[in-house]
């Protein structure tokens, strides 16, 4: 029975997808405007408040920052914290219409 410990409990390693594809939970999608985002605009590593505040670690510290929509739950903290208001929360339904 001991070898089956993992099948008898919820047990996981830290890493992407620990709780499944949580991007499917999202109702609002954060979209970064590179014309306003500080690192994107300057072409230099700076600010990264979105990366710092993201509770799910799905924003990269890159130029420009990118968001992993596979796991972003759409909580909106990045948009709230962005000092230049470069991130807009957009209805997911609008992207579904685009896909069609």
């Amino acid at each position, binding site marked *: *029975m001991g070898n089956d410990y993992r*099948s*008898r409990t919820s047990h*996981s390693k830290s890493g992407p997808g620990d*709780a499944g594809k949580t991007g499917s939970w999202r109702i609002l999608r954060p979209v970064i405007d590179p014309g306003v985002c500080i690192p994107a605009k300057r072409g230099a590593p700076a600010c990264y408040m979105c990366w710092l505040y993201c509770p799910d670690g799905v924003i990269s510290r890159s130029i420009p920052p990118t968001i992993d929509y596979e796991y972003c739950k759409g909580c909106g903290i990045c948009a709230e914290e962005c000092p230049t208001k470069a991130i807009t929360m957009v209805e997911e339904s609008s992207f579904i219409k685009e896909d069609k």
Partner: protein
Amino acid sequence: MQMIESGNVAAALGVKLSRAQVIAAYPITPQTPLTEKLSEFIEAGDMSAEYIPVESEHSALAVCIASSSAGARSFTATSANGLLYMHEQIHWASGARLPIVMCVVNRGVGAPWTVWNDHQDSMSQRDTGWIQIYANDHQQIIDAVIKAYALAEEVMIPVMVCYDGYLLSHTYMPFDIPDVSLADSFLPPYKPAYCLDPGEPANLNTVTLPDVRDDINGNRAHGYFEIRHLLQQDMIASMDALERIDSRFKTVFGRGGNPFIESYRTDDAEFIAVGIGSLSYHLRDVVDNLRDEGISVGGMSIQLYRPFPYSAVAEALKGCRGIIVFEKALSYGYQGPVCSDIKSALYQHGRQNSHRPFVLNYILGLGGREIVTKDLYDALKLSCTTGPDAPDELRWIGLKI
């Protein structure tokens, strides 16, 4: 070695012999002397364990959940409202499949405030996924604690060892203390199937979704439903495990052999009186008195309450005419929980055999109301002379209303 001591000390000695490594408990009457004794053992260097003082019972069990997750043999104990304060963590410990052992020194629950004995506290925790063992005397307390660790660690389910507050916890009785080296051979050090490893970080008991999912390695991981199904399967299977452990205990120490129920003069009994804990031994005196008068009656105690040993119970009771269940607990709005469970166990059997004994249910001793032998005698005698047509209603013993 024989000793005359209290039930709480018997429990503490069982914990010491089990070499528990972490103890976290909050004092509550009538459990207090048990944890005080354990802290004395540790302070005196007689026991190699961490005693972690906490500010509440909720924290006591939370500490044990953490220490057990880290691979330490862990112990806590409580009573009544302290047990209820743990309630959320009680579910957590079983869902996390941690082999914690907890002594529940049975006491009534408030309101109104009471510190005296009945079984309402542990009975109310029946559905939490813990194994529940009830001891009838001091010997069974010390033995049950040691067996409880063997069982919990084999089946990865926590165990409550329940015994009557005051009636057992504070009375003095002779009992045998198992030999240390024999106890060590019976219960080797805990080797967890898994424990926390800083070199390999993991998330334990993470959120599950309604459906199964793939883990980060792409392997199918069980969801909540599968994990809870396996808890039920393992609870049922733990009866076989307990039977084996009890049999091994008997081989080593010469005691045991009745892991599910204890029967007294039931071989030819037309009527069987059922009780839990010290009450079941009290009933034996009454059985003897009635036997002297030619009434064919026996007694039975439930030693294991969860998982409920339905086959053993039905087998033991199938041939009799009437079952009289004496209970110090009540599911308000219906009847005593043991009575319901006995009826349920008999239902399937009765279907197959077109015979079901009648079942009468007496409620007594709530909040420590004195249980007078004469009252038990009168109730049992009346029940044995009452036919199967007696109304299915609760009967109260010792009620002054």
